């Protein structure tokens, strides 16, 4: 266990100032920053909006509307590829594989960092959602701070669902990225699957494409989405399948650097 923690710390150092780290931060604040700007520009409606008891749900919905369908999956595709690229670009797989750690430890630590980066992204994104409501009140005297209770439980439930729906994308992209040296290939495959998922989201078998789940969650009340399909189950299943497959492929890889 100590070895796994040390290995995780080592992997965490590697992502410092990396493109993946910057993408996580900038991606998390992109939509909130745009929405905040929009709210500030349309300042005449701000006072009424911030006084509304539904302000947090409104901001949550607006932020996730843009994030869930395209930006989040695309961000995951890019971040997973960039994380694996750290080793390829620096010719470092061979050094990693000659350190005294089991292959399982290396796999878990590296994949653990990508999962924690996704958690970090969700936390920052939610901070961004809160700032969307707070920043205008700081800028304009006549705009009140949102007074309604912050809906912790619905936020947590909604975020948790989106998080689980992201996991198969993360796992599959990570699988591609650590096995394919040319990082354009996993990004290209991911982008193609994402576009396919946007087309297939309302198809009755669309749930078979794991990239559709974030869109489905957002459109869950739309009559084009079949409510009888348990996408939470499918998502978890795909995540486990891709992770185990990735682990087996990683262990049996003939060339380790």
């Amino acid at each position, binding site marked *: 266990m100590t070895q796994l923690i040390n290995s995780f710390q*080592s992997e965490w*150092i*590697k992502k410092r100032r990396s493109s993946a780290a910057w993408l996580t931060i900038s991606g998390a604040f992109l939509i909130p920053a745009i929405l905040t700007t929009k709210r500030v520009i349309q300042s005449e409606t701000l006072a009424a909006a911030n006084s509304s008891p539904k302000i947090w749900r409104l901001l949550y919905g607006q932020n996730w509307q843009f994030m869930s369908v395209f930006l989040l999956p695309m961000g995951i595709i890019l971040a997973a590829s960039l994380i694996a690229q750290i080793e390829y670009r620096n010719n470092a797989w061979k*050094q990693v*594989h000659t350190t*005294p750690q*089991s292959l399982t430890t290396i796999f878990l630590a590296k994949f653990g960092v990508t999962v924690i980066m996704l958690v970090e992204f969700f936390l920052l994104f939610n901070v961004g959602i809160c700032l969307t409501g707070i920043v205008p009140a700081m800028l304009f005297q006549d705009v009140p701070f949102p007074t309604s209770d912050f809906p912790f439980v619905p936020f947590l439930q909604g975020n948790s669902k989106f998080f689980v729906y992201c996991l198969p994308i993360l796992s599959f992209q990570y699988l591609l990225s650590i096995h394919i040296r040319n990082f354009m290939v996993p990004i290209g495959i991911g982008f193609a699957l994402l576009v396919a998922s946007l087309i297939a989201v309302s198809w009755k078998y669309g749930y078979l494409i794991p990239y559709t789940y974030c869109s489905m969650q957002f459109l869950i009340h739309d009559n084009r989405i079949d409510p009888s399909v348990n996408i939470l189950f499918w998502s978890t299943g795909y995540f486990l399948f891709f992770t185990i497959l990735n682990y087996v492929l990683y262990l049996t*890889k003939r*060339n*380790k650097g």
Partner: protein
Amino acid sequence: MNILETHHLSHQFPSGEKAVRDLNLRVPSESIYGFLGANGAGKTTSLRLVLGLLKKQSGEVTIFGKPFDQNRVAVLSKLGSLIESPSVYGHLTAVENLKLFQKIYRCPTSRIGDVLAMVGLTGTGNKPAGRFSLGMKQRLGIAIAMLHNPELLILDEPTNGLDPNGIIEIRELLRTLNREQGLSILISSHLLSEIEKLVTHVGIIHQGTLMFQGTFEELMNKKRQTARVVVETGDMSKALETLTAGAWKPTPAGEGIIVPFSSRSDIARINQQLVAADIEVYAIRNVSRDLETVFMDLIKTPSA
């Protein structure tokens, strides 16, 4: 006792090309073993097999007296390596690069300063390693390999990209570590001249086959045994006849005759025989036989 051994190690690429053939390396403890071969001879593939970076197809690797596969983590904890180009994370500083390996090796943080000083990289500050020169990256790679005070160091062409001064410094560093700390070193190179001043043992590989393995002294003896002179005479065919009859093994080469010899007195005897046969001897001169030529001869010979 050998600190590293390979037993009948072989490897074939998917294209069918045999990269390593029945390799039996014997690296003695506390030695500096020079693993020599031309580019593409199989050095890097052999070292990658030794370190488990390539899946073994046949043969065994024993390090510290233990089979590598069954003791991978324990063996790697006492081993430092630098294979081909240095593995440094370009977006991190030298200290951060070492810090991340220090976490894995669980060695004292003070080692980071020690190894940076050892390779002369103390003043790099916040400069990302990506902006280092190739020589600096190579030094950082050596620092990473040395971080946990290993007992065995495996270096694949570590002086690549270093200027002559850097090569001398690294050579001195390795010699000092070997002498003072008893560190065993397996170092590969395609240039014998580069490591002949450093090594105690030598292995020469060509087309995946080990052509020579032994002490540096044994290689030097081989050099002496294969010394040659060029003899220029007034009658080449008669001189060839005379020398052949005298149990020499002369071969014509241009306007002279090349004759192998093993001691300086042989040169006098060659001259005496030619003069006794009434052949005019115009010149007898040594054929330059540096170790590089011996090395080239070895890799031209079908077997050692």
